[in-house]
C-alpha cells in the first residue's frame, strides 16, 4: 500500500475532547500533514525547550519527513488556526535485527496548550499511520532525565522494550 494516498487529517470534535477533559472546554483540533510554512511556528516553541533548535535543522527535518512520503510522516496539530504541536515518525525496516517498526523521533506541544490532549491526539494519528503501513510496534528513545516525556509515552501504554541503548565517549 502506498501511504501517500492516505489523507492524514484527523478532526477531533469539541464534544469528544470534552469527554476526555471535562474540566476545560476544548477548541476543535485539526491534525494534518505539515507544510513548509508551519516550520516557523514550530521553531518558536521548540526553541524554548531546545537550545539547538535552528532553521536549518527544521528545513532538513521537513525535507526528510515531510511532503507525503510512504514511510515518513510529519504531522502538525492546529487549534484556533495556530500550530499547537507536531510529531515526526518513520517506519524503519530490519534495523538492529528488529522486524519493521514505527519510530517516533520528535513530539512537541506549545507550552500554553500542554495537558490539553494535543500530544495524545498526535501520537494516536502517528500510530494509525504505522498500523496502515503494516507495522505492529511503535518505538521511541528518550533521555532518562526527561521524566515528563517518559511519563507521557508510558501513559500511552509504552514500556521498556527488548533493546538497550549503549554509547561511549570518543
Amino acid at each position, binding site marked *: 500500500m502506498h501511504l501517500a494516498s492516505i489523507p492524514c487529517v484527523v478532526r477531533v470534535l469539541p464534544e469528544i475532547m470534552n469527554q476526555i477533559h471535562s474540566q476545560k472546554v476544548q477548541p476543535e483540533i485539526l491534525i494534518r500533514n505539515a507544510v513548509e510554512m508551519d516550520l516557523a511556528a514550530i521553531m518558536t516553541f521548540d526553541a524554548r525547550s531546545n537550545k539547538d533548535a535552528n532553521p536549518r535543522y527544521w528545513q532538513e527535518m521537513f525535507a526528510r519527513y515531510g511532503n507525503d512520503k510512504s514511510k515518513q510522516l510529519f504531522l502538525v496539530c492546529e487549534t484556533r488556526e495556530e500550530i499547537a504541536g507536531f510529531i515526526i515518525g518513520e517506519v524503519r525496516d530490519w534495523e538492529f535485527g528488529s522486524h519493521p517498526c514505527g519510530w517516533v523521533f520528535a513530539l512537541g506541544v506549545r507550552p500554553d496548550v500542554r495537558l490539553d490532549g494535543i500530544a495524545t491526539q498526535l501520537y494516536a494519528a502517528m500510530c494509525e499511520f504505522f498500523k496502515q503501513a503494516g507495522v505492529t510496534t511503535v518505538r521511541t528513545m528518550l533521555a532518562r532525565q526527561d*521524566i515528563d516525556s517518559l511519563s507521557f509515552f*508510558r*501513559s500511552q501504554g509504552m514500556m521498556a522494550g527488548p533493546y538497550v541503548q549503549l554509547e561511549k565517549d570518543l
Partner: protein
Amino acid sequence: MKLQQSTLLGLYAVLELAKAEGGQLSAADIADKFNVSINHLAKVLRILVKARLLQASRGVGGGYRFTGNAKRITLMDVIELFEPVSIEGFEDRELPQATDVEAGLAVALFEISEMMQATLQSITVRTMLKMMEKGG
C-alpha cells in the same frame, strides 16, 4: 530490587483505592484482599494519609479514599514514603576515595540505580490503572 513489606502495602493500598475512583474502602477490605495483617496495614495507611494521598473518615461506614492526583503521583512518590530508592552506597557515579574495584562497581551500579529511578518516576498511578485494566 526487593521492596520492604510496608512499601508493598503502601502501593497496594494506593492502587486499590485509586481504582475505586473516589470510593471508600475500609482497612479490613484492603487487608482481606491482599491477605495481610490489618495492624501493619493501618500503620501504612496512616503514613499515606499524612502524605495526603489518602483521606480517612471515621465512624460507621468510614474508611479511606484516594485523594492524590492520579496523573501526577508516581510509583516513586509512594515508595519514597517508606524507603529510599537507590542502591545503597552507589547514589553517585564517582565515589570519593574509592579503590579501582569500588570505582568500577560504582559505575555499573549507578547505571542500574538511574534506570530504576527513571522507571519509577515515570509511571503514574493513572498509568498503573490503565495497565491493570489491560490485565497487567
